[in-house]
């Protein structure tokens, strides 16, 4: 039985349809990430779970019961808002215990739960401070504590780390995972930051234009993007996509015939796509100064030095491609050679933009 | 939808409740009681600095003097119009005071719109001294509170218009303070001299929203305000002459000040105006507020014509509803009409007493000796005539129309036209 289940749910604001026929099943205690750029509808999905947004059509089930018209207060939701939504006039302790006091939970029980949350989120000594006397990180942890003490079934986070600076975000991510493993609630986490998604999520739902583009583990989403959107969205710089003029089991790159492995030949042949696009991640390309068998000559337009890595810009069939390599092997040479590694290739049907799939030998 | 329906229902019910209740008050009811005593409410217009202490004294003495009646005095701000407004509002809600102090200029309006017990009837019912009226008041005094053959109430306060002047400015202008001006021509000449010599103003006549002082100006030159068949007849040669003189003093000679009452009187106190034509009621305040030794003389005459000046002040009307309350009120009125109380009243306020014999009271004689202005007021008693009260609803409008007429004349309008226009308008209303 699923903890949260969307069945062809549609959400309309006036005439614009923000969520188009959503089907999503989330297992109990799972850490699911809703990933997408702003305006893709990820927050709306979260707010529909919490009941803060109504559902235009379709059904939402929480722990198996129909929850479309269930009052937000009855859904057992602990939520962390993007701006933390701490009550400016209440101390940290009062903020955390706000919900518990509304439900008239006995004071000793409240004290116990608050103490536990304060310890876990190391907010000791801050209990009687007001939010404006706290740092961004501390405020974020208070918001977390408030959502956790409820010990609710569902733990919803709406871009909780976006207001933190870089190093704090790293530590906060680890804490989030640690806390989740401790409390074990079903956690739905909305973010537009891929790294957060990859590091925090057990599963990631990549969302765009109100639809789920792919729902899978971080590894799968990165390694085997279901379509062009996921391929480009995940990874930075994003995957190179170009027309490899793939036909009859081979690609023509910069007028060099590059035969495909039998597996790929079979996969690309069977895809039935009129035109295929080839994808390869910049960090999967290795360039060499000297040609090798089957390598493709390329002209380096310019290169960027990122300190730990180097980026080379060249064109394949007229389209710009980036290669990221650990060290500067080309020493500014104008041209280089690229021997495509079949295990790092991806092929997409140009029309349907969906991935043609991977041959057996391509699996790690 | 439902919300608006709820609203209309609620509104409708409120409306019906309110309308049912409005309209006139209910009929006579028995006298209000307070621990056994009949309660008499006495509405007056006197302030803490003018008259109220004496009234309080009278009420306390009366309440101590017997145990059947309890009198409560109620101050009404804004003088006679203010009291009339409160009376109006009270009657509108079915209540009314036992005794109300009505300004003479409201005599007619009050008579026509309010229920009252005439002193004549009350005296008849009063077994102790049924001929109280005849033996205490002179006919001309009673006439102040009589319209047609209805004796509406008993005159209580009588004020007379007199001319106060500043001896220092007189001497500064080379005039002898002892030889006060007797005629309006002399007033004009003296005012001119004061203005030319000292640069201050020579003369100021109090300018309230009424026709009191100006009525004296017109009637003393022989004008008639209201003729026998009740028509306004003041737009005459005499009035024109009187106002022309006044206008010339203001506009031509620039010796007379034309300004709102409070400011003009304050200017006299601060020695900026030679002469002030004001009410005897202000004797107390004027002497207190002026740094110079205030002197006074009778209302100036026009040549050798007889001076006819209106009595200001008020009369007491018994507005009690029930008979028992009326008799209690009558008892109180007779109490305070005793010479020793009226003497206190005259000394403290500068009003002339409605009874002859009060003048002989030793305290009054002593006060007259001390404040010459009081003597001047007493001397003017014979030339006092009733303050003309226009009949019915016109009464409340007439005062304002006369005040507006005065303002237009003193700011340049030709007296003849202004007098005619106001007279015609009044006669239109009188039909």
């Amino acid at each position, binding site marked *: 039985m699923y903890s949260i289940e969307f069945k062809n749910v549609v959400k309309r604001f006036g005439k614009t349809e923000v969520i188009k026929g959503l089907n999503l099943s989330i297992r109990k205690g799972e850490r699911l990430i809703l990933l997408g750029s702003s305006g893709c509808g990820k927050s709306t999905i979260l707010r529909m779970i*919490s*009941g*803060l947004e109504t559902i235009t059509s379709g059904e939402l089930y929480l722990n198996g019961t129909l929850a479309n018209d269930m*009052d937000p*207060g009855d859904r057992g*939701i*602990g*939520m962390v*808002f993007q*701006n933390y*939504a701490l*009550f*400016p*006039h*209440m101390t940290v302790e009062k903020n955390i215990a*706000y*919900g518990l006091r*509304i*439900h008239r939970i006995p004071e000793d029980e409240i004290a116990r739960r608050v103490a536990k949350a304060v310890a876990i989120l190391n907010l000791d000594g801050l209990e009687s401070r007001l939010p404006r006397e706290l740092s961004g990180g501390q405020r974020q942890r208070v918001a977390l504590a*408030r959502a956790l003490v409820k010990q609710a079934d569902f733990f919803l986070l709406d871009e909780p780390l976006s207001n933190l600076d870089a190093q704090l975000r790293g530590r906060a991510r680890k804490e989030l995972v640690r806390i989740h493993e401790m409390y074990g609630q079903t956690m739905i986490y909305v973010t537009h930051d891929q790294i957060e998604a990859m590091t925090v999520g057990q599963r990631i739902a990549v969302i765009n234009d109100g639809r789920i583009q792919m729902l899978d583990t971080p590894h799968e989403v990165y390694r085997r993007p279901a379509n062009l959107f996921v391929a480009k969205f995940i990874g930075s710089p994003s995957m190179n996509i170009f027309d490899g003029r793939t036909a009859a089991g081979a690609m023509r790159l910069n007028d060099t015939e590059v035969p495909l492995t039998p597996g790929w030949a079979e996969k690309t042949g069977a895809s039935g796509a009129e035109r295929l696009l080839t994808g390869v991640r910049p960090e999967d390309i290795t360039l060499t100064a000297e040609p090798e068998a089957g390598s493709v000559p390329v002209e380096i337009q310019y290169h960027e030095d990122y300190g730990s890595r180097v980026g080379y810009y060249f064109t394949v069939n007229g389209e710009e491609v980036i290669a990221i390599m650990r060290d500067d092997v080309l020493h500014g040479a104008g041209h280089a050679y690229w021997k495509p590694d079949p295990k790092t290739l991806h092929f997409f049907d140009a029309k349907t933009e969906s991935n043609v799939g991977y041959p057996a030998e391509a699996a790690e | *939808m439902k*919300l*608006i329906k709820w609203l209309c229902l609620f509104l409708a019910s409120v409306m019906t409740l*309110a309308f049912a209740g409005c309209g006139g008050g209910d009929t006579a009811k028995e006298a209000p009681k307070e621990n056994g005593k009949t309660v008499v409410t006495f509405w007056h*217009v*006197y*302030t*803490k*600095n*003018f*008259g*109220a*202490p004496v009234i309080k004294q009278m009420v306390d003495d009366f309440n101590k003097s017997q145990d059947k009646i309890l009198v*409560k005095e*109620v*101050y*009404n*701000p*804004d*003088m006679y119009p203010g009291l009339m407004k*409160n009376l109006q*509002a*009270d009657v*509108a*809600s*079915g209540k009314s005071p036992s005794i109300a102090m009505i300004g003479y200029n409201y005599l007619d309006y009050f008579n026509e719109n309010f229920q009252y017990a005439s002193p004549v009837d009350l005296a008849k019912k009063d077994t102790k001294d049924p001929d109280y009226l005849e033996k205490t008041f002179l006919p001309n005094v009673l006439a102040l509170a009589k319209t047609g053959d209805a004796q509406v109430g008993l005159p209580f306060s009588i*004020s007379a218009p007199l001319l106060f002047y500043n001896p220092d400015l007189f001497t500064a202008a080379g005039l002898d303070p002892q030889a006060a001006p007797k005629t309006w021509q002399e007033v004009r000449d003296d005012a001119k001299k004061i203005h030319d010599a000292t640069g201050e103003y020579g003369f100021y006549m109090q300018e309230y929203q009424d026709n009191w002082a100006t009525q004296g100006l017109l009637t003393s030159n022989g004008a008639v305000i209201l003729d026998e068949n009740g028509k306004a007849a003041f737009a005459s040669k005499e009035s024109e002459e009187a106002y022309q003189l006044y206008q010339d003093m203001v506009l031509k000679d620039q010796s007379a000040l034309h300004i709102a009452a*409070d400011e003009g009187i304050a200017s006299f*106190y*601060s*020695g900026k105006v030679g002469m002030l034509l004001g009410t005897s009621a*202000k004797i107390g*305040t*004027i002497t*207190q*507020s*002026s*740094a110079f030794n205030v002197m006074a003389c009778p209302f100036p005459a026009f040549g050798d014509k007889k001076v006819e000046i209106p009595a*200001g002040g008020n009369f007491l009307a018994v507005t009690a509803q029930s008979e028992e309350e009326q008799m209690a009120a009558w008892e109180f009125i007779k109490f305070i009409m005793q010479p020793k109380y009226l003497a206190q009243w005259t000394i403290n*306020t500068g009003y002339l007493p409605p009874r002859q014999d009060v003048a002989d009271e030793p305290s009054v004689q002593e006060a007259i000796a001390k404040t010459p202005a009081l003597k001047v007021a007493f001397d003017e008693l014979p030339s006092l005539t009733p303050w003309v009260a226009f009949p019915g609803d016109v009464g409340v409008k007439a005062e304002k129309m006369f005040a507006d007429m005065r303002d237009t004349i003193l700011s340049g309008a030709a007296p003849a036209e202004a007098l005619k226009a106001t007279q015609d308008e009044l006669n239109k209303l009188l039909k």
Partner: protein
Amino acid sequence: MKINSSEIKWHLIFIILVLLLIYPLLFSLSTSFKTMSEAFQSSSLIPGDPTFSAYERVFTTINFVQILSNTFIIATIVTVFKLVTSVFAAYAFVFFHFRGKTALYFLLISTIFIPFTVTMIPNYITLSKVGFVDSIYGVALPQLADATGIFLLRQYMKGIPMSLMEVAELERASHLTRLRTIVVPLIRPAILSIGIIFFINSWNEYVWPAIMIKSEVNYTLSLALQMFVSSEGGTDVPVAMAVATLTMLLPLGLYAVCQKFIIGTFAQSGIKG
């Protein structure tokens, strides 16, 4: 504090304005310490021989304590009721969503535009029917709600971040709890400042009490002034000024104590455009 030249002219204008606005207050204060005749002789702000006679007359001839308490009771009742009714109404207009809300809001706001000449006679007659004339409660009764209060509080409530209310919604907090624990505490400065304005307006009110109150025992401060102003007998000016000064004491005191408060509230958000 170096002020560059171009600003000098602005500062000058403001200083003149401040002096013009402060002068009458000083004038009233100084006249209240003069005798009758000195009040008329000199207009200087420093009394020749200052005397407390005016204040003595105030405290001896009128029951000042009774008048002060009447004014205080009316102002308190009016302020408390106005705040409570306005807070609830404003809350409804910001946090509830129902058809006809805008229509109802403008129905209430339209009362700002009803001049008192419309309400004075009917209210007088209604209140006299229930015997509330000449009673301080009759003065307070028609003023238990205030559309300006609803209007202003609605602006401040709109300043409250929606997410805070959503936290309460997630806790299934009742509207009353949300009002008590979130809305009121957050706009407390605004409530207090508007409350002070209500209090001072009621404290200074003249027209309605003048129509409603008859007997001296129910007088308010602004009516007490009339007990020393008589067109017939003349005005006791120093006493009138003394009463005026005493009337000003409490509003000035309240303002001095809460001035940062009031200025902060109205200057900080006020009616944003």
